[in-house]
C-alpha cells in the first residue's frame, strides 16, 4: 500500500513537471491542456466536498460553474466596452482584474448555492439529485434566453483578464496561477476535512441520526458544506471562462454537471487529489482518443464502467489500495 499523501504529491508534481517540460519543448498547447485539467479539477474539488465528504449527490453543480463563468464574462465585457454594469441606484463598472472577478464569482455562486441548498436539502436521495438538476437546467435556459450577454451564442472576451504581477496571456504563467489556486483550495479542503466540521460532515454522511444525537445540526452542516462546495466550483468557472476567453450557456448544462462528477468517479470519490487525477485522465483521453475517433466517449464509458465495477476508489483509491474512509 502506498500512502495516499505520497500519491497526492506525485499527482501534483506530475502536473508541474508536464507543464515545465512542455515549456522547455515549446509546446504551449500542452500547457493549455494542463491548465484546463487543473481548472476542471478545481470544479470537481468543489463537488467532491459535497459528494464525497457530505454524501450529497448534486447533479446541478454546473449552475455554480456557469455563474462563476458569467461573473467573469459580464464584468470583463463591461470593462472592455467601457460601459457600466449599472448606473441606478449606484454606479457599478466592469473590471478586468482577476482577484475582483474571483471574489464576485465566489460570492455569487455561494449565494446561489445557499438558495439552492436551502431548498434542495429538504429532500434526499433521488429527489435531491432531481432538484439540483432542475435548478441547473433552469439557469441553462435562462442563459440561453439572455440576449444582453450573448444568449445561445455566448459571450467572447477578447483579452484575458489581468492578475497583478503576472502576464496571464503567457500560458505557463496562467497555468502557474491556476495551479496555485488549486493548491490553496486543496490545502483548505484538507484542513476542513480534519476539522470538527469536516469530521461531523463525514459522520453525518455515514449516519444522520447518530450525528444528531451528539448535537450536530445535520441540515445546517450540509448547507454550509454545499455553499463552500458551490463557491469553489464558481471560482473554477471564472478561471475556465478566462482560459477560453469565452462563456456560453453550455457551462450551465447538465452535461457539464455530469462531466464534473465523472472526474470525481475516475479519480476517486472523497479523495483529496482524486478530482485532479480524474480530470487529467479525462483531458488526456479527450485529446488523444478524440484525435482518433469522434466517438471517443465510448472508450471513456468503458473505462468508467471498469472503475465503477472494479475500482471503486478510482485512480487514487486503486493506487492507495485503502478503503475510502469518508463513505
Amino acid at each position: 500500500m502506498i500512502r495516499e499523501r505520497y500519491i497526492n504529491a506525485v499527482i501534483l508534481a506530475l502536473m508541474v513537471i508536464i507543464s515545465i517540460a512542455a515549456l522547455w519543448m515549446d509546446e504551449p498547447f500542452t500547457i493549455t491542456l494542463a491548465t484546463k485539467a487543473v481548472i476542471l479539477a478545481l470544479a470537481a474539488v468543489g463537488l467532491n466536498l459535497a459528494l464525497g465528504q457530505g454524501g450529497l449527490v448534486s447533479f446541478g453543480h454546473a449552475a455554480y460553474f456557469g455563474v462563476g463563468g458569467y461573473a467573469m464574462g459580464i464584468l470583463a465585457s463591461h470593462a472592455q466596452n467601457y460601459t457600466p454594469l449599472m448606473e441606478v441606484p449606484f454606479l457599478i463598472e466592469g473590471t478586468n482584474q482577476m482577484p475582483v472577478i474571483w471574489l464576485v464569482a465566489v460570492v455569487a455562486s455561494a449565494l446561489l448555492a445557499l438558495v439552492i441548498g436551502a431548498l434542495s436539502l429538504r429532500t434526499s436521495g433521488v429527489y435531491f439529485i432531481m432538484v439540483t438538476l432542475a435548478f441547473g437546467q433552469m439557469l441553462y435556459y435562462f442563459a440561453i434566453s439572455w440576449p444582453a450577454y450573448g444568449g445561445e451564442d455566448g459571450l467572447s472576451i477578447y483579452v484575458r483578464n489581468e492578475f497583478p504581477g503576472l502576464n496571464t496571456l503567457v500560458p505557463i504563467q496562467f497555468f502557474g496561477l491556476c495551479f496555485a489556486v488549486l493548491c490553496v483550495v486543496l490545502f483548505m479542503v484538507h484542513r476542513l476535512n480534519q476539522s470538527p466540521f469536516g469530521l461531523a460532515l463525514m459522520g453525518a454522511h455515514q449516519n444522520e441520526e447518530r450525528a444528531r444525537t451528539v448535537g450536530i445540526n445535520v441540515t445546517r452542516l450540509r448547507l454550509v458544506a454545499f455553499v463552500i462546495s458551490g463557491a469553489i466550483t464558481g471560482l473554477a468557472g471564472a478561471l475556465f471562462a478566462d482560459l477560453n476567453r469565452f462563456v456560453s450557456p453550455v457551462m450551465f448544462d447538465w452535461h457539464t454537471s455530469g462531466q464534473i462528477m465523472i472526474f470525481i468517479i475516475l479519480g476517486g470519490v472523497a479523495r483529496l487529489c482524486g478530482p485532479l487525477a480524474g480530470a487529467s485522465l479525462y483531458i488526456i483521453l479527450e485529446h488523444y482518443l478524440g484525435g482518433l475517433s469522434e466517438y471517443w466517449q465510448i472508450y471513456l464509458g468503458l473505462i468508467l464502467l471498469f472503475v465503477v465495477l472494479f475500482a471503486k476508489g478510482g485512480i487514487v483509491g486503486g493506487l492507495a489500495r485503502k478503503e475510502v474512509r469518508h463513505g
Partner: protein
Amino acid sequence: MSLLELSGITASYGASQALFGVDLTVGEGEVVALMGRNGMGKSTTIKVICRLLKNSEGSVRFAGQDISGLPAHKAARLGLGLVPEGRRCFTNLTVHENLYASARPGEWTFERVHDLFPRLKERERQMAGSLSGGEQQMLAIGRALMTNPRLLILDEATEGLAPVVRQEIWAAIGALKSSSGLSILVVDKTIAELRRIADHVVVLERGANVWEGTIDGLTTDVKDRYLGV
C-alpha cells in the same frame, strides 16, 4: 430536583402505538435503571427522550425546560448524551476523530476519557470500524461523554459483549457514578450489575409503567412477571 421528567408519554410508529403513558424521573446525580422484556418500550422511551421520536401526548422536561418541541441536535446540546443500542460509532472515522467530532467544552476532555478507557488512547489512530465490539462500546460511551452531558443515557450498553469486557464496561459506569456525579439512565437486564449502581428502577410492560422502586425491592414475582429472569 429532577433533571429529567417524563409524564404521560404516548408515542407511535405510524399506526402502531408503542408507549401508553410512560412516567419517568431522573434526579441530579441519580442512576435510574429502565427495565423490561424485549419490545416493551424501553428503547422507544429513549428515542422520545432524545427527540428521535415525537411523543403524541405527555411532556418531556429536561433541566426545567420542556423539550417536546426540540429537534434531536438541540436536545443533545442541552446535555443529553446517548450511547445507542448496538455500539453505533462513526466507523469511517478514527477513534480520535470520533471523539473530536463530538467534543463540546466542559469537564470531559480527551485526557479524562482516556483515563476512563485507556484502550481508547492506545487505539487513537485506528479506524473505529476495526475495533472489537467492547472497544467500540467504550468509544460510544467516550463519544457521549465528550459532549459533556448532564444526563448519560446507556441503551443496552453491554449487550452482546464477552463477559470480561462487560465487567470492564460496568466498572467504568460504576466509576462514572462515584467520581463524576453524572446522572445516568441505563437500560439493561442484568440485575446483578445494576444492583451496584442503580438508585432507582422503573419497569415497563407493553409501553407502560408497571413497577418502580429500589433494585433490592425487585421481588421474585416482579422478576418473573415483568423481566422474565
